[in-house]
């Protein structure tokens, strides 16, 4: 491999899936290649120091004079960078977005630049591939699926005993804990989490339902909290906000419920699998591709009742649950571990550089 200068453009440095995945890829390349890595942050965030530890970090004003052999757009949210990028470098775009983002986060000029300027698209699921074709008009021949990944060993090592929040420990009462994680925006569907909790409670009362991440109060969640109270779930459903180590919470879940309406390929599902927590999800998300073949349970969106039935089955069926957990654990190790997936991404980068 000839050393090259690779510039990674991230739309921000938030502690969310795409920037976290990019950091893992960059660290992998630092250890396994001689490429010179530069990060362009279009906006800031709590991961800025982590990016700076990988290599030089520059801002959007530096894009026009960027000296790189390859530019790696980490999301379509970074597509506006194409407007000022010099002509020379090859361009890869890693797409983590579905229809709404592809049609509303970027404008037609951005979509046109994506169609004409990007040499290869790397997408995180088949669902994203279809959305990219449908919403941007990208030729499927220029698209490769590279599913998301986690450092399985690190996830498992980072999961101590069930986590505490204040004085209360989830699951301490010995009852079932059905958990969820993510931001509390509409597309992640905290409203459907309430519906799920209500439906599970109708079948199996006395559960606990923590949601880790997102807001625990404020305009984004106030309506949901009012709804929680209206449903009589005030004591059982808790939105605990951002937690220093979400994995410790995950480890205490009996079932991980991905209630998202729209989710390209959530890493939280991989983390749950790595921790031996069974996952249920709607078929409107890319998680269905990981959960297929007995690695989880997928129900039609928005069939909350079917999801509740699946949750109760997982609580009751010891052998079935164990088989599902084991299948998911095998799959996450085999296909979605950093050590497996990062070399594939690296190969894609090398292939574009060599083209």
């Amino acid at each position: 491999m000839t050393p090259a200068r690779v510039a990674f453009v991230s739309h921000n440095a938030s502690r969310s899936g795409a920037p976290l995945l990019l950091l893992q890829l960059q660290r992998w390349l630092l250890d396994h290649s001689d490429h010179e890595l530069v990060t362009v942050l279009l906006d800031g965030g709590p991961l800025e120091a982590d990016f700076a530890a990988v290599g030089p970090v520059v801002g959007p004003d530096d894009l026009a004079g960027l000296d790189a052999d390859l530019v790696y757009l980490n999301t379509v949210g970074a597509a506006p960078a194409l407007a000022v990028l010099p002509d020379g470098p090859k361009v890869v775009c890693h797409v983590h977005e579905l229809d709404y983002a592809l049609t509303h986060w970027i404008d037609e000029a951005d979509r046109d630049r994506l169609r004409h300027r990007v040499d290869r698209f790397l997408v995180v699921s088949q669902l994203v591939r279809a959305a990219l074709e449908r919403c941007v008009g990208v030729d499927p021949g220029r698209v490769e699926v590279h599913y998301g990944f986690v450092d399985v060993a690190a996830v498992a090592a980072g999961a101590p005993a069930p986590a505490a929040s204040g004085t209360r420990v989830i699951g301490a009462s010995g009852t079932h804990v059905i958990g969820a994680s993510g931001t509390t925006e509409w597309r992640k569907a905290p409203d459907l989490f309430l519906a799920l909790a209500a439906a599970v409670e109708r079948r199996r009362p006395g559960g606990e339902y923590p949601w880790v991440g997102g807001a625990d109060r404020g305009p984004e969640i106030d309506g949901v909290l009012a709804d929680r109270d209206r449903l009589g779930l005030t004591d059982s459903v808790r939105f605990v906000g951002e937690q220093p180590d979400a994995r410790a919470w995950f480890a205490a879940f009996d079932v991980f419920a991905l209630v998202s309406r729209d989710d390209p390929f959530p890493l939280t599902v991989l983390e749950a699998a790595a921790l031996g927590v069974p996952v249920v999800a709607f078929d409107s998300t890319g998680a269905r591709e990981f959960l297929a073949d007995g690695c989880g349970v997928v129900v039609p969106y928005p069939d909350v009742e079917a999801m509740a039935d699946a949750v109760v089955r997982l609580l009751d069926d010891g052998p079935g649950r164990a088989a599902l957990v084991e299948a998911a654990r095998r799959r996450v190790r085999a296909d979605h571990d950093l050590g497996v997936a990062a070399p594939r991404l690296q190969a894609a980068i090398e292939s574009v550089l060599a083209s």
Partner: protein
Amino acid sequence: MTARPPARGADVVFVSHEATLTGAPVGLVQLLGWLREHTDLRVEVVLVTGGPLADAFADVATVRTVAEVLEGPLPRVLFLNSSFSAEVLLESEWPGSHVIARVPELEVAFDQALAPAARRALLERADRFVAVAERVRRHLVEGHGVAPDRIAVVHGCLPAEPRAPAVEAVAAARAEAGIPPGAPVVGAVGSRSWRKGADLFLELAATVCRRPGSKAHFLWLGSDDGSWQFGRFGDDVRRAGLSARVHLLDDHADPVPFQALMDVFALTSREDPFPRVALEAAALSRPVVAFDSGGVGELLVHADLAPVAYGDVPAMATRVEGWLADPDRAAGVGGRLAAAVRAHHTLAVGGPKMLAEIRRGLAA
């Protein structure tokens, strides 16, 4: 349309926070028409913001700005048509005016959406509250410590028994909605929003459509609330695989033909004190199903119906399916609801009750 201040103050100034095609302003226009027909009261209207009903207000009363009203002699009665009208209380103490606060809001609207200063002013300054449902009265008493003897309950009402629309108009509405002839229709009317539970309507549709043999179509009549989730609600319908079965139409100047094509009216609101759209559906002999989180149970009780436990979409789906499968039973329920509207919820009943509250204020 505005007018010069009169030499003496109006008997009553009604304040509407807007002039949209929504329950509270529509009801006020109709009440003003009834008052004009049945009384000699000198009535004026302040519209805090405008909307498509502005001309209708101007047809039934003199419309003035709050600044114009405050320039001249103040009215003997200030009638706030909703809690959101209370912002006029922040502009003046309205000395000498008897303040009647009509409250068509429940917990989220009253406790969260209403600005704290306006809420405080309303609770302190109102001489009398008119709650649109017992459920609202309980909220004012238990949630805000309002003395029960400061509150009257006057349920919402319609101007008169509606005339059934022409068959052709209903067929045209069906065609506009894209619903095949003969297909059963479950409908809702209202702003496509969180409070009105448009998302719960989709869950209801998904639940019914999944059940074997279901042929029902679902129609939501009402524009989105401007939020991105409900502005893009069609995406959610597509994601649920229901684009062919769930039909979304924006506000319509004449909703009656759409309401008339509904075999069942489903009120999926999270909170709705006493929604006018449910009265309208009932008046058209439509069976109505609703959650128990609002006040519509006070209408349903007349047809020996109880609302469904809030959030229990499968239970709502079962009731809907039962009516679709048994049109005679549905017609019976619809007939009882229509009779209830005639007996309890027309202006012939509600107008005098509201007038009594106004006269009580004039005499104060």
